[in-house]
């Protein structure tokens, strides 16, 4: 993102940020018998701006999840998206008492922030 003189969009945007809780699954490990042992989740707070998706962004939501509640979130913290190769699990974000899964993350690090798309986790 372009920075004009002392103006930073990230800084201006983060002025609107509120604290949200992120739940992250810790990496597990194989035991001596070759079985994977999951670890507990950890939680931490980040500052983020949460907004509804516009029509164009709704098309970025994965198929099968387009009828669920969706949100976009801007933050300075890089969050995890599920990866089939590394088996990293997606971070979950708590917004107004509901739990959302991070399904997409756009790296806007040149503007010092990240944009994520969140899909509500079905209870």
């Amino acid at each position, binding site marked *: 993102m372009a920075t004009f003189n002392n103006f930073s969009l990230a800084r201006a945007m983060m002025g609107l940020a509120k604290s949200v809780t992120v739940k992250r699954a810790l990496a*597990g490990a*194989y035991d001596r*018998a*070759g*079985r*994977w042992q999951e670890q507990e989740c950890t939680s931490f707070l980040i500052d983020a701006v949460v907004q509804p998706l516009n029509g164009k962004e709704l098309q970025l939501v994965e198929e099968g999840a387009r009828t669920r509640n969706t949100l976009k979130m801007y933050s300075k913290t890089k969050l995890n998206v599920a990866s089939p*190769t*590394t*088996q990293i699990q997606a971070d979950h974000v708590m917004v107004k008492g509901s739990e959302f899964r991070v399904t997409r993350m756009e790296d806007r690090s040149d503007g010092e922030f990240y944009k994520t798309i969140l899909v509500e986790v079905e209870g």
Partner: protein
Amino acid sequence: MTTFINPLDINPIDMEAFENAVHAWFSSASGLFTIWQEQGAPQPDYPYGSLKIISGPTALAPQWEIRQTYDAARPLGQEIKFEYAAPCRFTVSCQAYAKQGALPAVTYINRAMAALSTITTQTTFKVAGVAMERYSAVRNIGKIINETWLSRANIDVQLTALLLISEYTGYVTSVGIESTELGIDFTI
């Protein structure tokens, strides 16, 4: 007369002991870090081994053994215990993966196969109630992943483990016969 299946027998084959014995043999004999497949877990670094039970348990029906014991101290209606034992066959697919240019995967499988008949392996199996029955040929099944050859080899091993289950029943304590027509009314 009612029969009771022992609730402790809901897992009549000790699968944890079976899997641990197979894993102990394969990982130590091949020298590979070995995992069980399909756990939704990260892939280890190469070289590594993987195990998967691809068939079984298949009970070998003609070899069922039934043992019957009596114990008056057991609760009423459960004095007689039937113990059933049957060997069950499993087929375990054992795979090795290695990068091209390193030690070929087939070498690890050859090592594991060679150790199958050793006393050490047989003891490992015996302690867990497992017996090695037979094994397939070693297959060299390299494949291309992301435009790079991956060295891969496999052997299928047939093993048997013992299925143990018991049920309890009581016995007939008295029999009554009654007939007004014949004038019979007595209890034995």
